[in-house]
């Protein structure tokens, strides 16, 4: 069973392999986001870009894995992210989270978790925060 986390504690990070064109094609189909700018080089070039870039929601889904690897999904009350920069094709994301506060909400402990996705070259792509219930943890 999970044990009660402490303020300052980091979540076990989630490092992903470089994002391939195959992953973007699969994610387009699986997620229902068919915007061709992520999968069709011709469309990307017509918008003045050198190449396709990754779906922001793919990185958010990786952050979702970070959170549900840490605690069961039912503990996740709310979260939001800002997509602060584009993830280029072959970007290699690492998801991290850190508990920044634990407060009592209606008698139950609730943690604030700071979230980040950073690429291997240091580019920060997503920044966010989650509110996670710690009730029922010992």
């Amino acid at each position, binding site marked *: 069973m999970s044990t009660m986390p402490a303020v300052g504690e980091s979540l076990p990070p989630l490092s992903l392999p470089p994002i391939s064109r195959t992953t973007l094609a699969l*994610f387009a189909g699986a*997620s*229902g986001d068919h915007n061709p700018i992520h999968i069709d080089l011709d469309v990307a070039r017509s*918008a*003045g870009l050198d190449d396709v870039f990754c779906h*922001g929601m793919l990185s958010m889904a990786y952050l979702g894995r970070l959170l549900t*690897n840490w605690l069961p999904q039912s503990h996740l009350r709310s*979260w*939001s992210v800002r997509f602060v920069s*584009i993830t280029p094709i072959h970007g290699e994301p690492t998801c991290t989270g850190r508990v920044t506060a634990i407060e009592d909400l209606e008698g139950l402990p609730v943690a604030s978790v700071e979230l980040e996705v950073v690429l291997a070259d240091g580019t920060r792509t997503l920044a966010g925060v989650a509110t996670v219930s710690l009730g029922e943890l010992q």
Partner: protein
Amino acid sequence: MTANSVTRGRDIVGLELPSFTAVAERGQLRFFAKAIGQDNPIYWDLDSALAAGYTDLPVPPTFLFSLELGRPDPYRVLRELDIDMRQVLHGEQGFTYDRTAVAGEELLFCPRMTDYYEKRDGALRFLIRETEVTSDGAPIARLRNVIVVRELELA
């Protein structure tokens, strides 16, 4: 031009988009799990999900956004504002949950445009949509979506 785009943009604030129902199908959730490299079997193996206390495969945290992409005429607002898909970036996304939805459950989505603003003299336009999700009248989640529209030289 900019004043005009602000007026047209502000006109969409409060617009209620058509509500619609959506169901997360098991096969689609398995495909999603594969696409994001999900290694936790509760998201793709029914027996594991049942053993974890779910009544079917759980809908993972961001998948409600995917279901919302299936809304009728998804590009209506962009079309009304003469925005090309290639100009659109996802700015922010948020979720607030009441409980975890599961595969097969009929979910009702009620989306609404809640804000519009511009920055840098209209070079960046921000459209905010909020969506309530319910199941049999009981709350499931709320979604908040911010898209950013940039000026581009389009071929």
